[in-house]
C-alpha cells in the first residue's frame, strides 16, 4: 500500500504542474482558436530566467521567479502580437504550423544564451514533508499549493471580473462581441498576458521540481496536449480533473511498467481521446 500512496502523492505534484502548464495553453486555444505549441517554450523562458538570476546573479529565489514570470509574459505577449495576430485570418492550421517556427526561434535563443547540458536551480534545503506513509519535498508541496491558488484565481478572474467576461465573450464569438461593444482587442491582449503568465508560473514550477535542460520545456508539450484534449473545451474543472488523472496515472503506472513506457501512455491518451472522445470529458464542442 505504501508505494502506491507514495506514487499517488508524487502524481498529485505532477498533476499540479500539468494543471499550471495546460491552463494557459487551454486559454489560448479557447480565445485565439489555435493550438499554440510554442506555449511549452514559454515555460523554458521563465525557467531559465529564474535559473540565471537565482544561480548566476545570486538573487533571492522569489525575486528570480517573479522576473521569470515577467519574462514569459513579455515573450508570450510579443509573439502573440507580432507573430500570431497578423495571421489570425489564415485559420488555425496555419497558426499551428507557425507556432512550430516560434518553437525553433525560442529554442535557438535559449541555447545561445545558456548552451546545452543540465542545470539545477540552487534552493535552500528544507525538510521534506511527511504525512503518514508519504514523504514529499517541501517544493513539491509548494507547487501543489501554487497550482490550487493560481487555478482558483484564474477561475475567479475569468468568471467574476469585467475583463474576464470580455475574454469569455471574445472566445465565443469575436465579431458578435465586437458589435455588442466588447473591446475584443483589449480582451485578446489580456488573454495573451494571462496565458503567458500561467506559462511563466508553470516554468518556475518546472525549475523547482528538477534539473533543467534546454529542451525540457518543449518536452512537456505532448503531455500538455494530452491534458487539454482529454479535458475538452471550456471548463477549468475538467482541465483540473484531467491534469490530476494523467499526473497520478503516470506515476502509479511505475508500479507495473518501466519509466520509459510512461510517455507512451501519455501519447496513447492523446491518440485515443482524439479518436473516441474528440470533445473530451467536458463533452462540449468548439
Amino acid at each position, binding site marked *: 500500500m505504501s508505494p502506491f500512496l507514495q506514487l499517488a502523492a508524487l502524481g498529485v505534484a505532477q498533476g499540479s504542474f500539468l494543471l499550471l502548464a495546460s491552463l494557459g495553453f487551454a486559454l489560448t486555444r479557447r480565445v485565439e482558436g489555435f493550438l499554440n505549441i510554442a506555449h511549452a517554450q514559454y515555460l523554458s523562458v521563465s525557467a531559465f530566467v529564474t535559473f540565471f538570476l537565482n544561480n548566476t546573479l545570486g538573487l533571492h529565489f522569489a525575486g528570480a521567479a517573479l522576473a521569470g514570470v515577467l519574462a514569459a509574459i513579455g515573450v508570450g505577449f510579443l509573439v502573440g502580437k507580432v507573430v500570431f495576430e497578423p495571421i489570425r485570418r489564415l485559420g488555425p492550421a*496555419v497558426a499551428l504550423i507557425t507556432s512550430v517556427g516560434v518553437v525553433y526561434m525560442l529554442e535557438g535563443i535559449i541555447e545561445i544564451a545558456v548552451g546545452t547540458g543540465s542545470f539545477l536551480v540552487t534552493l535552500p534545503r528544507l525538510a521534506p514533508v511527511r504525512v503518514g506513509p508519504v514523504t514529499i519535498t517541501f517544493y513539491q508541496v509548494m507547487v501543489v499549493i501554487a497550482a490550487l491558488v493560481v487555478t482558483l484565481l484564474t477561475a475567479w478572474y475569468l468568471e467574476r471580473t469585467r475583463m474576464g467576461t470580455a475574454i469569455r465573450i471574445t472566445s465565443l464569438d469575436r465579431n458578435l462581441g465586437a458589435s455588442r461593444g466588447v473591446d475584443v482587442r483589449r480582451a485578446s491582449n489580456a488573454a495573451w498576458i494571462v496565458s503567458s503568465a500561467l506559462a511563466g508560473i508553470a516554468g518556475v514550477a518546472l525549475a523547482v521540481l528538477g534539473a533543467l535542460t534546454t529542451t525540457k520545456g518543449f518536452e512537456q508539450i505532448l503531455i500538455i496536449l494530452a491534458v487539454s484534449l482529454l479535458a475538452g473545451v471550456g471548463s477549468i474543472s475538467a482541465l483540473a480533473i484531467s491534469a490530476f488523472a494523467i499526473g497520478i496515472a503516470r506515476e502509479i503506472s511505475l508500479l507495473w511498467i518501466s519509466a520509459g513506457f510512461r510517455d507512451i501512455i501519455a501519447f496513447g491518451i492523446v491518440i485515443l481521446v482524439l479518436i473516441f472522445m474528440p470533445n473530451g470529458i467536458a463533452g462540449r464542442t468548439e
Partner: protein
Amino acid sequence: MSPILAALITVGILVGIYGVVAIALNFQYGQAGMINFGVVAYFAIGAYTFAILTAGPPSETALDAYRWGFDVNPLLAALIAGGVGVLFAALSGWPALRLRGEYLALTTFAFAEVLQSLLINVPAVTNGTSGFSNIVQPLRGSVGNYNVFLLLVSLGLLAVTLIIFERLKRSPYGRLLQAIKNDELGVTATGQVPERYRRQVFFLTAFFVALAGVIYVVWLTIARPTSFGAEITFFVWIAMILGGEGNNWRVLAGVLGLTVLDELIGQLPVRSVRGAQMLQAGQVFLTGLLFVLVLRWRQPKAGS
C-alpha cells in the same frame, strides 16, 4: 576527391532523400490538404525495417540487446521496408484520418513520438538507444565510389517519385483530391467517399517515404532513435513551406536551399565546443525565423 566535391555529393544525396519526403508531404498537404506532423515516423519505419532485416544475428561480445537479425538480401529488405511503411500508414491512418486540420497534425505528431519512444524502449527488436551500426551497404565492393553510387540511387528515387506524383497531380485523381481539400462536402455529395482517398494518399506516400528512410540509413550506416526525432519532420515542413507548397519544383528548391544552408553552417570553422553550440543554436533560431517570416508574408491559403 576534393572536399568541395565531397560536400556537393553529400548535399546531392540529402536533397534526394529529403526531396522524396518533401514531395510526399507536398502531395498530402498541397494536394489533399492533410497536415502530417509525424512524417518522420514513416521514414524511421523504413530505416529500421531495413536495419533489422539486414542485420546479422546478435553477438554476445558486442553487447547486442536485439534478439533477431535476419540477414535478408538488401534489395528485398528495401522493398519489404516500403511495404512495412504502408502497413504502418494503415495502422496509424485508420484512426488518424478521421480527423482534420490541426487535430490530424496532433495525432500524427503523437504517433511519431510513440514510435520514437518504442525504438528506445523495445531493445529486443530495435537494440534500444544504441540502435544498429555497420548497416549493410549493398554493392559496397563492386561500385567505384560508394557515395557517388548512393547519389545516383537517391536522385533516381527522387526522379521516380517526382514523375509519379507529378502525373498523379495532373490526373483526374489529383483533381479529385484537390476538390476534397477545397470542398469536402461537395465531393461527398457526388457520391465519393473522401476518407477512402485520404487513406490511399497516406498509403502511397508512406511507401516512398519509407524507401527514402532506407537510403538514409544506408548512407549513415547507423540507425539510432535520436536520428529520427521531430526535427526531420519539421526540416521537411520548413523546406516545403519555404519553397512554396503545391508546386513540386519549388518544394525541391526549398529542400535544396535548406540543405545547402545546413551544410554551409556545418562547414564554418569553430574554435571551441561552446562556439559549435552557439552556431548550432543560431541555426535553429534562423530556421525558425525563416519559417515564421515565410508563413507571414507568403500567406498560404490552406486551412482558411
